[in-house]
């Protein structure tokens, strides 16, 4: 039951193996990794800078999680999100969820990502050879969230 914001880069196995071992009795482990894509519409992305309002990001993610936990019975979760400068192909976000049955993990993990995309206070700026640009929130991301929560 951890939410981590870190500057340092990480690889999946730093977290997933340990998480799975810690949840020995769970039948299902879901994970999602979001990475920096090296291009945005044919513009080479040199790096991205992620700005964070930490207190609020933590508060909002916790709030989503509390709502999701009322709806889906899960054993454990882990959220890792980077901030600061991140290079193409590096991981930005990792969500891992353990549950008895797979559907609970899927719904929890997907719902958490959907909400995180529109509520968690992170902002990305993409750095190109000829300048930088703040990343807009995707219109599609708003459509995914389950307002019944």
């Amino acid at each position, binding site marked *: 039951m951890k939410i981590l914001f870190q500057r340092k880069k990480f690889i999946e196995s730093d977290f997933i193996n340990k998480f799975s071992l810690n949840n020995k009795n769970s039948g299902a482990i879901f994970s999602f990794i979001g990475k920096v894509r090296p291009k945005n519409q044919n513009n080479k992305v040199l790096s991205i800078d992620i700005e964070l309002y930490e207190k609020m990001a933590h508060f909002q993610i916790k709030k989503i999680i509390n709502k999701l936990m009322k709806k889906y019975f899960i054993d454990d979760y882990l959220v890792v999100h980077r901030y600061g400068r991140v290079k193409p192909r590096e991981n930005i976000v990792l969500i891992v969820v353990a549950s008895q049955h797979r559907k609970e993990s899927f719904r929890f993990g997907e719902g958490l990502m959907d909400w995180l995309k529109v509520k968690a*206070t992170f*902002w*990305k700026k993409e750095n190109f050879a000829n300048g930088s640009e703040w990343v807009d929130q995707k219109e599609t991301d708003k459509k995914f969230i389950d307002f019944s929560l």
Partner: protein
Amino acid sequence: MKILYFAKLKQLIGKSEETICIKQKKKISQVINELKKRNDIYDFAFKETNSLQYAVNCEYVDLNFVITDSDELAIFPPVSGG
């Protein structure tokens, strides 16, 4: 009251936070109008940043939300993490 700016808004205003004094309760919209009147930088920053969002003490609120001097107001463009 503490005001926090993030992302493009912070970049345009040129600072991440400041403290203003609010003697009586005010709507966020009033606070923003007063900020805009300060100078061209604020005016430009608020006009240039689309669909701003507002949070008081980490909760999302709208422009009609009434704040007091002990609140922490954050103003920022829609988030884009994940």
